C-alpha cells in the first residue's frame, strides 16, 4: 500500500513538473488535430474511418514521448538517482513513471476525441470498449517509452530509437488504412503490433465494428502486450537506471 502511494506521488510530481513542456503539447495535440482536419477537409464522409487511428497515434506519441523525455531528463540531471536512493522499489518507480506518462497520453487523446465529438459530431457505440482501448494502450506505450529511454542518455537518442519503431508500426497497424484494406503480406506483421489492437478497440468503441470478430481478441492481445512490456521494462530498468 505504501509503495502504491509512493507511485502516486511520483506520478503527481511528474505531471506537475513536465506537463507544460511545449514540445509535448505540439506533438501530442497540434499534430494529430491538424492531421485530422486535413483528412476531414479532403473527404468529410470518411473521416470516421481514420479517426480511431489518429486517436491511437496521439496516444502512441503522447505516451512514448512523455516517458522518454521525463526519464532521460531525470537520468541526465541525476534526479533519477535521487529517486533510486529513496525507499521505493524499482517496480514503484516504473509504475509511477508509467502512470504519469499514461495519464498524459490519455488526456491528450481525450482532447482530440472530445474535439471530434463536439466539432464533427463523432459518437460512441461502445464507450466502455473505447475507454479500455485508451487505458490499456496507454500502459503499453508508456512502458515502451520508459524502456527505450532508460537505455540511452539523451532525449534525442530516445526519440530516434522510438521513431524506428513508431513510424513503421503506424503504417502496418490500420492507422491510415483499415486492416481489411492492408496488403496480405503486411497482415501477419500487423498482428504482432500492439497498435493494431488498440486501433481496433477504439474503432469498435466508436463504430461498433472492427476487423476482428470479437472485441475480446483485442482486449486479450493488448493485455498480453501490457504484461510483456512490463516483463521487459522491469529488468531493463533495474540494469540501466543508474548507468
Amino acid at each position, binding site marked *: 500500500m505504501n509503495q502504491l502511494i509512493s507511485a502516486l506521488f511520483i506520478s503527481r510530481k511528474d505531471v506537475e513538473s513536465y506537463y507544460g513542456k511545449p514540445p509535448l503539447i505540439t506533438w501530442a495535440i497540434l499534430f494529430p488535430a491538424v492531421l485530422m482536419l486535413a483528412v476531414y477537409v479532403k473527404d468529410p464522409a470518411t473521416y470516421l474511418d481514420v479517426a480511431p487511428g489518429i486517436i491511437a497515434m496521439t496516444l502512441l506519441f503522447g505516451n512514448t514521448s512523455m516517458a522518454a523525455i521525463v526519464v532521460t531528463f531525470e537520468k541526465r540531471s*541525476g534526479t533519477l538517482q535521487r529517486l533510486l*536512493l529513496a525507499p521505493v522499489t524499482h517496480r514503484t518507480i516504473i509504475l509511477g513513471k508509467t502512470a504519469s506518462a499514461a495519464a498524459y497520453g490519455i488526456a491528450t487523446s481525450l482532447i482530440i476525441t472530445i474535439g471530434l465529438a463536439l466539432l464533427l459530431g463523432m459518437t460512441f457505440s461502445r464507450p466502455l470498449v473505447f475507454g479500455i482501448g485508451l487505458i490499456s494502450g496507454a500502459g503499453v506505450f508508456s512502458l515502451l517509452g520508459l524502456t527505450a529511454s532508460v537505455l540511452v542518455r539523451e532525449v534525442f537518442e530516445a526519440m530516434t530509437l522510438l521513431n524506428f519503431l513508431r513510424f513503421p508500426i503506424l503504417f502496418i497497424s490500420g492507422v491510415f488504412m483499415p486492416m481489411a484494406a492492408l496488403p496480405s503480406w503486411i497482415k501477419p506483421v500487423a498482428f504482432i503490433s500492439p497498435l493494431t489492437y488498440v486501433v481496433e478497440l477504439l474503432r469498435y468503441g466508436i463504430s461498433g465494428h472492427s476487423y476482428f470478430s470479437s472485441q475480446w481478441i483485442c482486449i486479450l492481445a493488448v493485455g498480453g502486450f501490457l504484461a510483456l512490456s512490463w516483463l521487459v521494462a522491469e529488468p531493463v530498468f533495474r540494469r540501466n537506471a543508474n548507468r
Partner: protein
Amino acid sequence: MCPTVREEVGSRAEADIAIQVGGLCKSYGETCALHNVAFTIPRGEVFGYLGPNGAGKTTTVNILSGLLDRDVGEVMICGMDISRDPVPVKRRIGVVPEESNLYPELTCRRNLEYLGELYGLSGPARRKSTDELLGAFALSDKKEAPFRTLSRGMKRRLTVAAALLHSPEVVFLDEPTAGLDVPSARALRALIQTINRDGTTVFLTTHNLAEAEALCDRVLILVKGRVVTEGTAMEIRQKVEKSRTLSVVLSADVAEQSLLDACPAVRSASLVDGTWRLEVNDTHAAVSQIVSFAEKHGVRVSEIKTATTTLEDAFMTILKEDVERESPT
C-alpha cells in the same frame, strides 16, 4: 581471509554498529574496483573514507546506499543487509551525492516536501521538517525559488537538507564541500558537526584531507580498491612518522642534488616558497649535516625546525609506498 560480518557481529553489540562491511568485492568487467574491503563504523562516529581518484570511494558509497549491486561480501547497515532489505535500509539512511541532484524545476520547499512524501512522512511532519530544515540551512527566504536558480553553495545546502529530512541514522556525504567557496565550505563543515552532535553517523568521502582531519573520528585510506590503512588521524600519522620532516630556510639558493649528496640522512628534499621541506631518517644527523653543508657553501641557516606530519603528508607517504611496492625496481 577476512572474517565475515556475521562473525564480527558476535563480538560487538549490533545496536552499537551503524555500518559493517566485510569481504566486499566489486568488478567492472576486468577492472577490480573493490577488493576484500572490510570496516566497521560504530554509531555516532564521523568516518572518513579517503583515497585518490579512482580508488573506489564512490563505488563503495553506491553499494552501501543500494544504488549498485556488489559481487561478493556482506554489507550491514543498522543491522540490515541493503541488498536483502533495500527499502527499510533506505528509510534509515540519507545520501548526499557528489552532484547536487534535486529537481531543478521544483522550488526548494516542494523538493523537500516531495522527498518527504517518498520517505512516508505525514503531511504535518513533512511541513514541519521542511520549515525547520530550510531555517536551519539559511534557505527560508529561498523556499519558493526553483532549485535551478540557487547558487552552488545553496544547492549543496539544500541537498544536505534533503538527506536529513527523514532524520536518518546514517548519512553518506560524497565530497560534500567539493567546488564550494571557503565560507560555504566552512558553513557546511559546521553543519556536519551539528548533524553528528545529534547522534547521526556520518560516512564522509573527501579529497580534502584537512577537512577529514578536522571532522573525522576515524579515517580509512583506500588505494586501487584495497584498504591500505585505517585508524584515527593521529594513528595514521604515527604509522608513517618513521621519517621526520625538517623545515629549513637557507640564506641563499642551493642545488637540490648537492644538498642531498652532502646530507645522507636526508631522504628527499623539496623547496616550497623559499623553505626546504626535508624528509630525514635521523633528525640529529640531518641537522649536523645541513649545518656543515651550509658552512661549506657559504650560506647561512636562517631557520631550522621539525615540521608536523599532517594527514596529507601521511596520505602522500602511503600512496608513495604503494607505488614503490608495486614497482620495486
